[in-house]
């Protein structure tokens, strides 16, 4: 499939104050040194919830109590991560802005999908007015304005810090949700469509995964996949592609998936209350020559549940993106079996980026991730993201104390709270 995700996707970096356009500083590309350093940018992400700028006649006027409730709900959604929310414009420092009641769009729209959240100044707009009231919609009650605005606000902020619609699909291990369907991938996704908890997760949308407006007005929360990515933003291991060719199995660049302490954000569902064991890594790389392929090696254990993703077309900071293809290869040089097909993907369901979703390793040993461009003349930059996910086993007669200790060390900064308890 050709590259569709075009330039010019970013929202104008301008805010409108009393009819005037006040330019905000444009983001320059971050220094290459930062991109290529180990470890992700880690700083508190400040977010201004702007209910003032775009308020027009005929739109819902959020009361002070509603604004406070929305702030508290979104704060609770992100409570396991380093975020700070304010209802007044910050006087200084970097911050992102969620502008509510923007009359441009119905629903929401984000500046970018900023994997690893390297830009702390991007923006999103939200407007739920057309989604409440009227035939077939949730009622236009104050409670629904609060809950739906909170969901879509958290959703768009999720994009601004790197989350994708794929991240709504859960539980991990059950493949994708019935919508968008296996045929939306190229080639068709060969795995199960059992991720039936997607609709209750913040990164779901009606268009992406078939959730409803009633879902958005409900008690939504972040999925396991979202929690992994949000944690990775703060403490993930980021490697640079090594210089020199690594286009064969013997010359593959070795990468190590590092342990990540991922909190459980699940309020209801199969994995609620459980503890996660996650290892992850990101690699920044370049397809620099025609027909180049980059090969990375990692050690796996039989039964490991793996996810891989090449992010390029959907990553706004990459000016020269590629239409990537990803393949997972075993030590014998064969593409690994992947449900009813093979572990290779050209396009995920929304862009020309590629993904391997919920691959279970068939044996213990060395595996290889191959990244190449779909077209032989296609060159450009990409970021590879890989993670291994496991639930902490239920404690038996032996090991309760050690598992408890492990869980305490690796997860959870605070217990989950249902949104409904906030209202």
């Amino acid at each position, binding site marked *: 499939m050709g590259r569709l995700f075009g330039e010019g996707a970013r929202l104008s970096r301008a805010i409108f104050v009393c009819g005037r356009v006040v330019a905000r500083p444009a983001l320059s590309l971050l220094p290459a040194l930062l991109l290529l350093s180990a470890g992700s940018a880690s700083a508190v992400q400040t977010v201004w919830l702007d209910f003032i700028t775009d308020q027009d006649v005929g739109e819902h006027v959020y009361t002070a109590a509603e604004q406070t409730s929305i702030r508290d709900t979104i704060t609770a959604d992100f409570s396991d991560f380093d975020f700070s929310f304010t209802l007044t414009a910050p006087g200084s420092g970097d911050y992102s802005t969620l502008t509510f009641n923007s009359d441009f769009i119905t629903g929401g729209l984000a*500046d970018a999908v900023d994997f690893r959240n390297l830009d702390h100044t991007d923006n999103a707009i939200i407007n739920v007015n057309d989604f409440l009231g009227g035939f077939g919609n949730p009622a236009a009650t104050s409670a629904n304005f609060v809950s739906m605005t909170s969901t879509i606000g958290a959703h768009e902020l999720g994009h601004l810090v790197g989350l994708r619609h794929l991240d709504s699909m859960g539980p991990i291990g059950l493949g994708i949700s019935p919508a968008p369907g296996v045929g939306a991938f190229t080639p068709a996704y060969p795995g199960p469509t059992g991720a039936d908890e997607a609709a209750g997760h913040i990164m779901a949308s009606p268009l992406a995964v078939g959730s409803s407006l009633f879902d958005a007005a409900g008690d939504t929360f972040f999925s396991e996949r979202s929690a992994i990515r949000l944690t990775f933003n703060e403490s993930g291991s980021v490697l640079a592609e090594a210089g020199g060719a690594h286009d064969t199995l013997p010359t593959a660049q070795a990468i190590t998936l590092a342990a990540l302490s991922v909190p459980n954000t699940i309020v209801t569902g199969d994995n609620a209350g459980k503890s996660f064991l996650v290892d992850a890594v990101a690699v920044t790389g370049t397809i620099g020559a025609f027909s180049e392929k980059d090969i990375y090696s990692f050690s796996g254990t039989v039964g490991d549940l793996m996810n891989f993703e090449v992010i390029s077309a959907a990553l706004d900071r990459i000016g020269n993106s590629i239409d990537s293809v990803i393949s997972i290869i075993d030590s014998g040089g064969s593409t690994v079996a992947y449900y009813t097909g093979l572990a290779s993907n050209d396009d995920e369901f*929304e862009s020309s980026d590629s993904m391997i979703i919920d691959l279970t390793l068939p044996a213990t040993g060395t595996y290889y991730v191959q990244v190449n461009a779909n077209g032989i003349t296609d060159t450009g930059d990409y970021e590879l993201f890989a993670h291994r996910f496991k639930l902490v086993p239920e404690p038996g007669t032996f090991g309760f104390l050690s598992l408890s200790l492990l869980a305490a060390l690796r997860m959870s900064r605070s217990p989950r709270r249902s949104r409904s308890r906030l209202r």
Partner: protein
Amino acid sequence: MQRFASARYRVALGIVLFTVVQSVAFASGARAAGGEAISDRAADAAERADLVVLGRVAAKRSYLPVDGGFGYDIVVSETLKGTESGTCSVRAGGWAYKVDLSIGAEVLLFLEESDAFLPAERFKPAYGSERGLLVFLVRAGRLAAATREGEAGWAGRSVSEVREAVAAAK
């Protein structure tokens, strides 16, 4: 078991909702065809639109990962209202729905000027009197639905009928 029961419930609910929506759409279409004349609705839509054009989709950009729908470049073959000629850029779709047009498709669009948030596309689809999008495919001189969110009751009407109504509304 609970998972399957939940799935069955959702399927059943989906069928019921689909039936209801189809019934409403049919009733709405029938009313448009038999009650309020389509020419009146076209005239009303034209009065509120900034631009009404016939044209062909020449380029397509996806903003799906950020909930932004698709952007289109439309090569205008006829301007029914407004002064735009040549190529106009349109952003359609978003968080909850999409308007998925193929390159080369012939379209009739009622458009509003967008604001400064999206500099890549100057226009967005206008809404009809029943809050449906005024975006239509044109096949053999007649309108066809381009999206499930399109205004009901226009499919099958002729372009010439709409052209006359728009002209009368000027």
